[in-house]
């Protein structure tokens, strides 16, 4: 009960930020919220089933290009663009997921690795996508709108994950992560479940990309299909707590705050910082910040030793 009240209070505080925050804070907020959406979306497949996707930056790129093409080339309204981008990304998730998610283990991660490079090359040769110059979207100076849209999307993604973690479907996904053979025998249609999770992940990722494109008003192949963005999704989710409801959001907020602070002074320090974070996180808190919080409350600093021992590092 108290937990829900706290979450509601934080959500309200975030929703009212445009009333009391300055322009820079709101802009930082839009970025942080969108990155949190990406982490949460990655969590749906990566956190629950344990299948690490490196194709999510592709879904993000398709979301940005869908929105940009609809708005810049056809003069369609923003929401139509979001729909187009989401449809493209979900279609791509289906086409990639159905053949590759039949396989088990690391093949999926390997197969998705090259995807964003391939699509980047593809759009760089399409007239409708502005070739390698990119596209310019109509300008709308309304950061409050973008902020609230991003917040609403994060809320939707988080509610979806909350539903997942309490649902029969979500339990099937977790069972896949824990023992895929046993899950299959017990009646979990593993391929179907993984594909649905990937498509759901693609949906939220693409909408985040669409909002970002309209906000920034300019996209090109390199920024839309940026594979380092995918790495950030993984780091933030793993840092916060994969397979949990709030972990990826908390992880994304904390890491983007630190990243922002570092990137404004020395940009190489930011990259170095992320490298250090992932090494420390994997060693001391392989189950993320959320589990670290519980563990510390239960057994204090001994938690760190316990995890190191348990995972035999």
């Amino acid at each position: 009960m108290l937990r829900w009240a706290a979450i509601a209070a934080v959500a309200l505080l975030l929703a009212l930020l445009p009333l009391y925050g300055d322009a820079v804070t709101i802009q930082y907020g839009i970025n942080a919220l969108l990155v949190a959406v990406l982490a949460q979306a990655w969590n749906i497949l990566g956190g629950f089933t344990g299948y690490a996707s490196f194709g999510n930056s592709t879904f993000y790129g398709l979301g940005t290009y869908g929105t940009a093409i609809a708005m810049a080339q056809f003069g369609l309204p923003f929401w139509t663009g979001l729909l187009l981008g989401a449809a493209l990304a979900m279609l791509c998730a289906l086409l990639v997921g159905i053949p590759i998610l039949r396989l088990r283990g690391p093949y999926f991660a390997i197969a998705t690795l090259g995807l964003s490079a391939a699509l980047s090359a593809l759009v760089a040769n399409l007239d409708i996508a502005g070739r390698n110059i990119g596209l310019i979207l109509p300008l709308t100076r309304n950061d409050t709108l973008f902020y609230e849209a991003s917040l609403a999307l994060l809320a939707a993604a988080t509610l979806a994950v909350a539903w997942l973690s309490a649902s029969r479907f979500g339990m099937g996904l977790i069972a896949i992560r824990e023992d895929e053979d046993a899950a299959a025998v017990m009646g979990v249609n593993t391929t179907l479940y993984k594909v649905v999770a990937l498509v759901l992940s693609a949906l939220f990722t693409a909408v985040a990309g669409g909002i970002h494109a309209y906000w920034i008003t300019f996209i090109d192949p390199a920024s839309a299909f940026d594979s380092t963005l995918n790495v950030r999704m993984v780091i933030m989710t793993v840092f916060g707590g994969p397979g949990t409801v709030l972990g990826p959001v908390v992880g994304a907020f904390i890491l983007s705050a630190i990243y922002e602070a570092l990137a404004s002074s020395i940009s190489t320090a930011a990259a170095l910082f992320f490298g250090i974070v992932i090494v420390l996180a994997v060693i001391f808190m392989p189950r993320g910040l959320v589990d670290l919080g519980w563990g510390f409350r239960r057994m204090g600093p001994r938690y760190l030793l316990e995890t190191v021992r348990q995972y035999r590092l």
Partner: protein
Amino acid sequence: MSAPLLEIAGLSAGYGAVPVLRDIALKVDVGEIVTLVGSNGAGKTTLLRAISRTLGARGRLAFDGRDLAPLSPEAVFALGLVQVPEGRQLFGRMTVEENLLMGAYRRKDAAGVAQSFERVYRLFPVLFERRRQKAGSLSGGEQQMCAVGRALMAAPRLLVVDEMSLGLAPVVVDQLLGVLSDIRGEGVTVLLVEQDVFAAFSIADRGYVMETGRIVREGKVSELAQDPEVRRAYLGVAEGG
């Protein structure tokens, strides 16, 4: 005499070009506890894989008169032929209760599932005490109980238990054997695959002895226990292959 629940005849199977099982014949009648014993590498687990359809095989393989050959592992499970696999295959980071619930994943009857829960918790009170604990944090014996409990949640008609005693303390093995006897009384037929011949014979009605991919002896366990060959194998002198 009604038709056997599980009927295997002329069954051969192997991995790639390597044959493992040759001309296996085995049957389990409704309400029996049948044990399949044999040393390491005799082909027991391979036979179970053929039964659960996770390994292709040639020959007759029927459950309740129904040919299993065209069925998938899930379909075999859904018919009520449920295995407790060697190594348990629990969902380690799910709670005990969630593990049990996974056993009933494809069942739609909420009342029946609630009944199964009650039955499993009655058979294994310790699982009720630890129902909120992660399955991976249980002791070996409790994990085996959880694995048996999860299989029972599927409302099995034939429960196939593979190497239940492996790595467990004798007192825990006795407790688990007692539970298998109890559930037989509740209408579940049991096929128990064991290396621990002494434990298996203590509750089984009939037994099969397997060596290098063949059934070499079969009969009532009281007769098998007197057989000099079996006694030799039981003492660990015979070679498995």
